[in-house]
Structure formats: structure tokens, C-alpha cells
């Protein structure tokens, strides 16, 4: 394979950092990924040579800023293969995208006795906004259960789709288990009942090629900071006819066509949902991240990470007393596990002393922890720049911790 991980690593300056005098082994990518120099440069360049507000001035800098911002929107459109650039809304993160849908589409279309289907492996970001909506509207949340391996029970999903179902909100890839769900199939099943589907693609967006037209999803939310881009910028994709029919969410500048005290006319898509000055540098940084990923090739990344997953799964399952949480057939990036006799927090702290960054805790997915009867897990998660040597370091680190506590 032509994928040269050492060359890729060279693009990420932070990977040269040392932690307590040891080389950094960054395995907390499901939390956030590191940024390539191209993204850092794009942000610096924006503030160095183009900074101005967008859409509202006719001077050169504003033109540059507007071109950069709208150019980034086009890059996102192409990245997701959306039909039109008007279907790409910039938000702060996937969480905000989901909340936007809940507060607009949800309030408009979901009422008393209606049901929203989510799964037992959702991140809190794809649970709580719907719970809040249900509370407000007198609707009900229905939950697709998961198997011991961490796969969705699709028969149960089929039974949950009823005339009362008004929306399916489903995670593409679980941050706590690594499971990649068959969302194409699930979207088709929902559509057969006339039910629209929102996909939480926060985790999958940097591991799998996404094609919103092929998937035929109605909404899709992602976070830029997991996609090697900056924090504070995310994307909500929505089908044009749905976005057109939805009321605006936040009011302010840029989302209006005209304002008088008698009547305000709202702007057209996508500005209707982008009140106020947006994170211009963030969008431009995200555009640079997309260019970077596209140049590497998402299929190459997927193939490389797939090999690394196989290697890591073998190496970790060979560790005595290690229990892997989530062993789905379709899995990416995430190793979530417990080690008997080792508190996950201690494991995280002690690995950190060896320069290895993982996450420990409940991963904003309390229901997943409850499902597997664990209080918390340790989670190592991979990205395009991780290596077999880093997995070896993790395994050696876990064994050393076992000795320390033995």
C-alpha cells in the first residue's frame, strides 16, 4: 500500500511533543484529533492576510474572507457529496447541529404521543436534545437495544418503526464501542415508513467516506475538530426541502433578508440558519482539513486504519485480564476496555506518566456503560497518524501498570 504513515506523522507538528520526557503517543482521537500543519497555516493565513467580516462589505479583505468561508462550504459539500451547497450549514459542532434540528424540525413536526427512535449506543449529544424535546412536546423516546458484542438489534429496530415514529436519530459510529452501524439499511427501513433520519457522524466522518446522497439521510451532523480541523466549527447537512420548510432557530444578523419592526423576512438557505458572525477562521480551517484528508484519500485512511485495528485487537486481546467492550464485526478506531484489578482512572494516569494519552471514563455515553455493567472504561482510539509501534507502546504500558499494581 502506498500509505506512508511516517510521512503523514510529519504533517502533524504536535506529534513531536514529549510528555514527561517521553515521546507522545496520542491515542485519544475519538475525543479530538490533532491538526496538520496545513490547517494551522490556513488559520494563521486567514488572520494574517484576509481577516474581515463576511457577506456585508465590499472591500477586498471582506471579499477574501467571504470567498474563504463560502469556499469551505463548497469543500464540505463535495466531501459529503451533498446535492447543493445550500444544504450545508455551519454550526459549532455536531451537538449544535443536532440541537438545531431538535429545536426547529422537532418542534414543528413532533407532538404529543409521537415517538423518536434512538439507539442504546448514542452519545449524550444524540440523547439529551431529544429528551428535552420529548419533555416539551409530550413525545416519547424509543431505544434500539444493543447486543453483547455491541451491535444494534435490527429486528427490534424494525419493530420500533410505527405510525407514531416521527424521526430516527442514529449514530453512524459509536464513540464508546467503535461499532459502525449499517445506516444505509436503517435509513431505507425508516423511509419505508415515511420517517426521516438524522445521522450523528461525529465519529465516522474521519474514518469512513460519507455520501449523503447515496445514504439518502435527511440530516447529518459532524464536528470539525474530530476531522483534523479546528474546534468550534461543525456541519449540519439537511435536505433542501426539509431545511426550506423549517423555521429559523436563532435570530440576528445575516439570517434575514429585511427587517422592520412590523415584519422581518428571513434570508434564504443556508444563511437562514446562520445568525451572527460565524467562526470564519474555523470554517476555513475545516476546509483545509478536508483538502488534507482528500489528498490522503479517505479510502486509503480506512484501509490503513483497518490494518491497525486488526493489529491492535490481536495485541490487546493477548493482554491478560483485559475485557474488550464492543466487539462488533464492523468496527473502527476505538478500543474500549477494562482491565481486572486496574481502575480505568489509574490506568489513564499511569499511561500518561509514560507519555501515552488515552481517555478513561464514561465517554458521554452513560447508557452504554450501564448496558455492559461497567462504571467506566479505558478507551484508546486511532487516527490516520497512529502506528503499530504506538499500539505496542500501549500494550507494554498496560502490562507495566498491571505489574505496578500487582
Amino acid at each position, binding site marked *: 500500500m502506498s500509505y506512508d504513515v511516517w510521512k503523514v506523522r510529519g504533517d502533524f507538528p504536535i506529534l513531536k511533543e514529549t510528555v514527561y520526557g517521553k515521546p507522545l503517543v496520542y491515542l485519544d482521537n475519538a475525543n479530538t484529533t490533532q491538526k496538520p500543519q496545513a490547517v494551522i497555516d490556513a488559520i494563521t493565513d486567514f488572520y494574517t492576510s484576509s481577516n474581515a467580516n463576511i457577506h456585508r462589505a465590499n472591500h477586498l479583505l471582506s471579499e477574501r474572507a467571504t470567498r474563504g468561508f463560502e469556499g469551505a462550504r463548497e469543500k464540505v459539500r463535495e466531501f459529503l457529496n451533498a446535492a447543493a451547497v445550500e444544504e450545508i450549514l455551519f454550526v459549532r459542532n455536531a451537538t449544535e447541529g443536532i440541537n438545531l434540528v431538535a429545536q426547529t424540525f422537532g418542534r414543528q413536526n413532533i407532538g404529543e404521543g409521537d415517538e423518536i427512535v434512538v439507539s442504546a449506543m448514542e452519545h449524550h449529544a444524540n440523547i439529551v436534545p431529544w429528551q428535552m424535546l420529548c419533555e416539551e412536546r409530550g413525545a416519547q423516546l424509543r431505544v434500539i437495544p444493543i447486543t453483547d458484542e455491541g451491535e444494534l438489534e435490527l429486528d427490534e429496530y424494525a419493530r420500533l418503526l410505527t405510525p407514531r415514529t416521527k424521526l430516527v436519530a442514529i449514530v453512524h459510529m459509536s464513540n464508546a464501542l467503535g461499532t459502525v452501524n449499517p445506516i444505509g439499511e436503517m435509513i431505507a427501513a425508516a423511509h419505508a415508513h415515511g420517517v426521516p433520519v438524522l445521522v450523528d457522524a461525529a465519529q465516522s466522518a474521519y474514518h469512513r467516506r460519507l455520501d449523503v446522497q447515496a445514504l439518502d439521510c435527511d440530516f447529518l451532523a459532524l464536528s470539525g475538530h474530530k476531522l483534523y480541523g479546528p474546534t468550534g466549527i461543525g456541519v449540519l447537512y439537511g435536505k433542501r426541502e426539509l431545511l426550506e420548510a423549517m423555521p429559523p432557530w436563532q435570530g440576528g444578523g445575516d439570517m434575514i433578508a429585511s427587517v422592520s419592526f412590523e415584519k422581518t423576512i428571513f434570508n434564504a438557505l443556508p444563511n437562514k440558519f446562520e445568525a451572527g458572525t460565524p467562526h470564519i477562521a474555523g470554517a476555513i480551517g475545516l476546509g483545509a482539513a478536508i483538502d488534507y484528508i482528500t489528498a490522503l484519500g479517505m479510502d486509503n485512511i480506512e484501509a490503513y486504519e483497518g490494518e491497525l485495528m486488526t493489529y491492535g485487537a490481536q495485541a490487546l486481546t493477548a493482554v491478560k485480564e483485559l475485557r474488550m467492550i464492543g466487539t462488533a464485526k464492523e468496527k473502527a478506531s476505538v478500543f474500549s476496555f477494562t482491565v481486572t484489578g486496574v481502575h480505568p*482512572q489509574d490506568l489513564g*494516569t499511569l499511561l500518561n*506518566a509514560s507519555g501515552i494519552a488515552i481517555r478513561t*471514563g464514561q465517554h458521554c455515553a452513560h447508557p452504554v456503560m450501564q448496558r455492559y455493567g461497567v462504571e*467506566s472504561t479505558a478507551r484508546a482510539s486511532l487516527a490516520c497518524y497512529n502506528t503499530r509501534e504506538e499500539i505496542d507502546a500501549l500494550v507494554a504500558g498496560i502490562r507495566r501498570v498491571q505489574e505496578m*499494581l500487582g
Partner: protein
Amino acid sequence: MAASQEERAEDIRDTFAMFDDWTDRYQLLIDMGQKLPPMDPADKTEETRVKGCQSNVWLVARPVPGSDRIEFVADSDSAIVKGMVAILERVYSGEPAANILSFDVEKLLADLELEQHLSMNRRNGLAGMVARIKDLAAEVAGS
């Protein structure tokens, strides 16, 4: 004569200073925790639990009858937090209430470069444990 509270704290500082490597420091901390007298499992109740986001501390503290001293037994599900409990045990347990109230435990943990564990009180029950002991000390000192 037994070492004073400040002497015992100094002793802990000296011991930690012997190790440059963080792994070795943590090993020392873990060993200190493992040497703590075991807590009666019956004492580990909801009432004695000081809940943290990731780990818990169980604490039973009481005034020594007929004195202004406080003794306690504590445990944690985290080996590192248990090591911190051992440090607190060394500088607090059996001390008069006034000494517990005046002793700067944050400074000791900062000197050991462990203060991040105390300040991040969402993650473990340590800060809550210190608060409970100090509350009891304030009660004893006030009575």
C-alpha cells in the same frame, strides 16, 4: 517522641524528591496506599462514600473519645487515590482538630506535584474527603 505533623509532611516530601521519574513516583504512591490498614467492607456504605466522577473514596472519621483528636479510616477503588488517602492519613489522622484545620494540604500536594488530582475534584473523591474531615475538625474544635 513521635514526629510532628510538619515533620511527617517533610518526610513525605523528601521521599518523593528521591524519584525523578513519574512512573516511580506513582509506584511509591501506590505502595503507600497498599500499606494502609484495610477498611471493613461493612463500612463502605452510601453514607461513607465520597463520590467522584471516575473514582470513589469511602471515609469513616470520628473524634477520639475524650480528646480533640480525629482518627479516620478511608479507602478508594483507585490505587492512586488510595495512595493520596495514605498521605492524608499520615498528616491528619490522630491530629488535634486545630492542626487539621491549619495544615495546608493543598500546598503539600502541590509540592509533590499531585495537586492536579486534588483540584480536579470531579474525577475523584479526594477533595470531598478533605472537606468532610475538615468539617468534622471544625465541629470538634468548636465544641
